């Protein structure tokens, strides 16, 4: 499968790094694996890092919106970082930036999340 997902934890924040192509075909696996991590004890916030994401379509938007709802239910915050121009355009078109903050890189996102605590 042409999608790779890597996870890490920084205090209460789950960091998910996606690379490759996020479409309908790869969305199910990403959704399942992210929900498993989000369900773990002590996970409150989600940082989605998209530096190496080469392709995304509206199926990816569905995955992001779904995870946003989950995290919000848990009382946490979801943010994105390292968004490349094509993905940026999709997120903008769907109004995602009205509900989610975007950061240049992981470390600036993490320090913001910590201030917000």
């Amino acid at each position, binding site marked *: 499968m042409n999608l790779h997902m890597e996870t890490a934890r920084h205090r209460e924040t789950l960091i998910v790094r996606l690379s490759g192509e996020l479409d*309908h075909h790869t969305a199910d696996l990403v*959704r399942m694996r992210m929900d498993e991590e989000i369900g773990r004890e002590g996970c409150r916030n989600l940082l989605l890092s998209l530096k190496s994401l080469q*392709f995304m379509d*509206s*199926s990816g*938007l569905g995955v992001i919106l*779904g995870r946003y709802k989950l995290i919000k239910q848990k009382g946490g915050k979801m943010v994105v970082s390292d968004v490349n121009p*094509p993905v940026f355009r999709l997120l903008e078109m*769907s109004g995602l930036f009205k509900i989610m903050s975007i950061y240049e890189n992981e470390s600036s996102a993490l320090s913001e999340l910590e201030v917000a605590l």
Partner: protein
Amino acid sequence: MKENNRNHMTLQFAAKSENESFARVTVAAFVSQLDPTMEEITDLKTVVSEAVTNSIIHGYEENPEGIVTISASIEEDTVTLVIEDKGRGIEDLELAKQPLYTSKPELERSGMGFTIMENFMDEFDVASEVGGGTSIRMKKRIVSKKALYN
């Protein structure tokens, strides 16, 4: 006499999600003869992905026996794409085209497919018949890298 510079291709495949990336890459390779920019390639890949995914999920409801057909043609600097299925069709086209509307929220669809196709292409038309299938016709003029450098 003017040289005939029209070119075309047709691609048919099973309605399986594995074929979504195959469809995008194939159309991109066909259009590469116009020397498109990275952004133009991304736009075309994205709209192909949207239309093919819709045929698979909504048209055939994931029944892999369904067949998706893509016809692509190039005339001068313009690409025409037709993406068709013989699936269940769309009852209310106006509703279906609304941004964020989806008939399958339980599958976490975002409802942005038609909005993206409309935004990324110069022309966009949907023809659909309930029980007969859906056909999406889209056009885009490729400005091409050559034009940018001249």
